[in-house]
C-alpha cells in the first residue's frame, strides 16, 4: 500500500510562552466579567481597541473566539443553531458559529482554560465595519441578548488611496464613541494614556511585521500555519507591553533559526503565498499536506493584516483612523493587486493560492478576476481553492488535496 507521508513543520519554542500569555488574557477577562472589577468591551479585530484599552476596558474579540471554534472543529455543529433562528448559512460563518455556540451554551474556553465557564459578559460592544457588514449584525444580536449598547464605526469600503476625507470621516466617528464609552467606563479618556497605547500598538505591529518578514529567508523559518497561531497576541493584546515582549522573544527565536539555516519545512522546494482566510478546522491537515510536498506556505495577506504602519502616538485618533482604513480588506481591487504583486516579489513566491471562502466574500479575492490579472503580470501561477473559514460543510478535503498536489507538481514541472 502506498503510504501517505505525514510531515509536520518544526515547533516554535516560544509557543509555550504564548500559551501562558493567552491563558492569562482569558483568565483576566473572566475575572473582569465575573467580579465586575473591570469593564469588558467586545471589539472587532480591527476595531478601536486602542481607545478601549486606554479607558481600562478588558477587551475581548469574538472573531478570535470564532477562530477557536473553527480550529477545534466545533463550528460546523454550531452553525445550524444560528441558521435555525434566521441567520443564513451563506453569511459569515464566524458569526453563525459564534452565535450558535452561545445559543448552545458552548465555548472552547472551558476546556482550554479551566475555571472559565463562558465567554465574558460584555458591558459594551464596539465594532468597525472596515472588515465587513457582518460584524455589525453580529454585535447587534449580542447587544439585544445582553442589553448593552453596540456602537462603532461604519467604514468606507473599496478605498483606493486613503485620503484626508476618509481619515476625517473615521476619526470623527471614533471621537463620537468617546462620550458613550466614558459613561460606561466611568472615567474620562486620558489622552496621554491613549497616546501611550497607540505607541505600544505601533511597536507591537512593527515587531509582528519583522516576525513575518523572517520568512523572506530561504529556507523560511516559519510558515503561514505558525503565523495563524502566533498572531494571537497581535490580535487580542495590541496596545500592551505583553504583546511587545512576546514578539521580541519570538523574533529572536526566528532570527536564530535563520542564522542556523533552520527550515520550517524540511527540504523547502516551493514557496507559496496564501491569499484569504485560513480553513481553521484544517490547519494541521493543510500544514502536513504542504510540508509533505516540501512546499512552504510562508506568507499571507491574512497574517499581514495586523501590520499597521500608520499608528502614531503623536496623533492618536487620526492615526488610528488611518491605520484602520489602510487595512487590505478595506481597499480597492487596484490596491489589492499591487499589494499582492509586491508580496510575491518580496517573498520570492513560486505560486499563490487563493482561498475562496464560501461565507466570506470580503476576504475572498478571487471573485473579480484578480488571480488572472496578477498571474498575467507576474507569471506566478495561481490556484483557487473553494472552502470556508469555519463551515467545514463547504470544504472538500479530497478536492483540496488533489488541487494542491497538482499545483505543486505544476510548479515543479515549470522549472
Amino acid at each position: 500500500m502506498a503510504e501517505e507521508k505525514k510531515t509536520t513543520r518544526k515547533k516554535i519554542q516560544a509557543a509555550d510562552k504564548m500559551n501562558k500569555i493567552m491563558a492569562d488574557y482569558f483568565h483576566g477577562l473572566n475575572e473582569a466579567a465575573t467580579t465586575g472589577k473591570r469593564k469588558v468591551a467586545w471589539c472587532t479585530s480591527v476595531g478601536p481597541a486602542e481607545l478601549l484599552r486606554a479607558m481600562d476596558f478588558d477587551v475581548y474579540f469574538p472573531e478570535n473566539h470564532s477562530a477557536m471554534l473553527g480550529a477545534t472543529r466545533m463550528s460546523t455543529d454550531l452553525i445550524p443553531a444560528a441558521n435555525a433562528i434566521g441567520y443564513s448559512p451563506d453569511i459569515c460563518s464566524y458569526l453563525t458559529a459564534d452565535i450558535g455556540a452561545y445559543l448552545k451554551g458552548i465555548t472552547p474556553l472551558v476546556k482550554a482554560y479551566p475555571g472559565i465557564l463562558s465567554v465574558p459578559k460584555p458591558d459594551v460592544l464596539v465594532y468597525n465595519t472596515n472588515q465587513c457588514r457582518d460584524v455589525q449584525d453580529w454585535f447587534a444580536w449580542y447587544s439585544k441578548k445582553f442589553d448593552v449598547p453596540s456602537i462603532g464605526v461604519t467604514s468606507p469600503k473599496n478605498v483606493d488611496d486613503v485620503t484626508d476625507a476618509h481619515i476625517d470621516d473615521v476619526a470623527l466617528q471614533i471621537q463620537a464613541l468617546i462620550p458613550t464609552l466614558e459613561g460606561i467606563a466611568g472615567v474620562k479618556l486620558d489622552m496621554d494614556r491613549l497616546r501611550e497605547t497607540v505607541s505600544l500598538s505601533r511597536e507591537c505591529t512593527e515587531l509582528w511585521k519583522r516576525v513575518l518578514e523572517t520568512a523572506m529567508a530561504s529556507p523560511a523559518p516559519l510558515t503561514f500555519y505558525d503565523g495563524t497561531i502566533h498572531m494571537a497576541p497581535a490580535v487580542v493584546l495590541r496596545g500592551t507591553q505583553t504583546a511587545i515582549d512576546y514578539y521580541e522573544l519570538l523574533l529572536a527565536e526566528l532570527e536564530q533559526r535563520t542564522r542556523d539555516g533552520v527550515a520550517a519545512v524540511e527540504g523547502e522546494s516551493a514557496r507559496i503565498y496564501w491569499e484569504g482566510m485560513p480553513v481553521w478546522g484544517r490547519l494541521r491537515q493543510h500544514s502536513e499536506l504542504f510540508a509533505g510536498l516540501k512546499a512552504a506556505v510562508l506568507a499571507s495577506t491574512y497574517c499581514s493584516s495586523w501590520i499597521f504602519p500608520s499608528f502614531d502616538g503623536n496623533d492618536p485618533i487620526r492615526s488610528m483612523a488611518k491605520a484602520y482604513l489602510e487595512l487590505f480588506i478595506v481597499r480597492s481591487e487596484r490596491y489589492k493587486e499591487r499589494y499582492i504583486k509586491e508580496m510575491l516579489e518580496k517573498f520570492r513566491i513560486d505560486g499563490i493560492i487563493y482561498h475562496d471562502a464560501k461565507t466570506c466574500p470580503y476576504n475572498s479575492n478571487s471573485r473579480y478576476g484578480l488571480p488572472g490579472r496578477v498571474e498575467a503580470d507576474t507569471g506566478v501561477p495561481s490556484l483557487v481553492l473553494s472552502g470556508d473559514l469555519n463551515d467545514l460543510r463547504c470544504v472538500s478535503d479530497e478536492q483540496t488535496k488533489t488541487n494542491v498536489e497538482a499545483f505543486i507538481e505544476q510548479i515543479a514541472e515549470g522549472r
Partner: protein
Amino acid sequence: MSTPVFIGLDIGSSRVKVAAIDARRRLLGNAVRKSGTDFAATAEACLDESLGMAGVPRDAIVHAISTGYGRTNVAFVTAQSKTEIGCLSRWGRDHFHGAITIIDIGGQDNKVIQLDQDGRRASFKMNRKCAAGTGAFLEEMSQRLDIPLEAMDALARQSREMVKLGSYCTVFTATEVLENIRHGKKVPDIVKGLFYSVVKRVIEMDSHAGRVVMTGGVVAHNPYIVEMAGEMAGRPVVLPEFPQLAGAIGAALYALDEADPNRIETNIPAGETHG
C-alpha cells in the same frame, strides 16, 4: 523474454482504468471496471486483464504509477502517485503538438487543463465541490428518468426540441426534470437538455486556448456531448481514441519516465502513442 511494460492505474471515484504501454509508448492492454468499494481488488482485476490483453506476465512490469481519487489505495505501484491533473497533462503533452485545452469530465469532478505551446501545464481548474455537470450528475438523472446510462447518447440524438434546464445544482435540476415530465416533455428532449447543461458547465469553467480535447468516461460513452461542445464553442472539439483511458495512459507515461533510460526507446515523435 516478455516485452517490458509500464503501467498506469487510474483509480477513479466511479471507474478504475488501467493502461499497459511498452517502451515505444504503444498501448498494449487496458481495462475499465466499476471502482466499487474495494479499490485495491478492482485495480488488481484490471491489472490482470490489461496484462492478459498485452500478453505479458506480471514480471514484465518495469514501473507502475497510480492516479485518481484512490491513488493511495493500490499495492503494486513502484513510484510515488501522481494527480489525475498531472497524468492528463502528461498524456496531452505526449499525444498532441502545440497548445491544447483538455476538458475532462469524470465521475466526480471536471477538470480544465491548459497546456502551452511546449506541452507544459500552464494552468488547471477543477469544478467546485458541487457535482453538477459531472458523471455523477448524469448517473443521478438516468435513475430519475429510469433509463439506462448507456441509452442516453442515442436518446439525446433523437431530440427535436431540447428542454432548457436552468438550475445550477443537481437537486434543483432533478426537480426541473420532474416538472418537465409532468408537462409532457419528451424524454429525448430532456436528455439533450441534461447534456446541454453538462456542456455548459464545463465550457464555462475556463477560457480555451489552442485545440480543445475532451476526455473522461462521460464523453467516452456519450460522444454527442463532444459534438454539442464543439457547437457551443464554435470550433471543433477533439474526441481522442480512448478518452476514458487518458489519465491511465498519462500515469503509464510517468511510469515510463521513471524507468531506466537505457531500457527505453527514445526519439519517438509525439502523438505516436495509441491512446
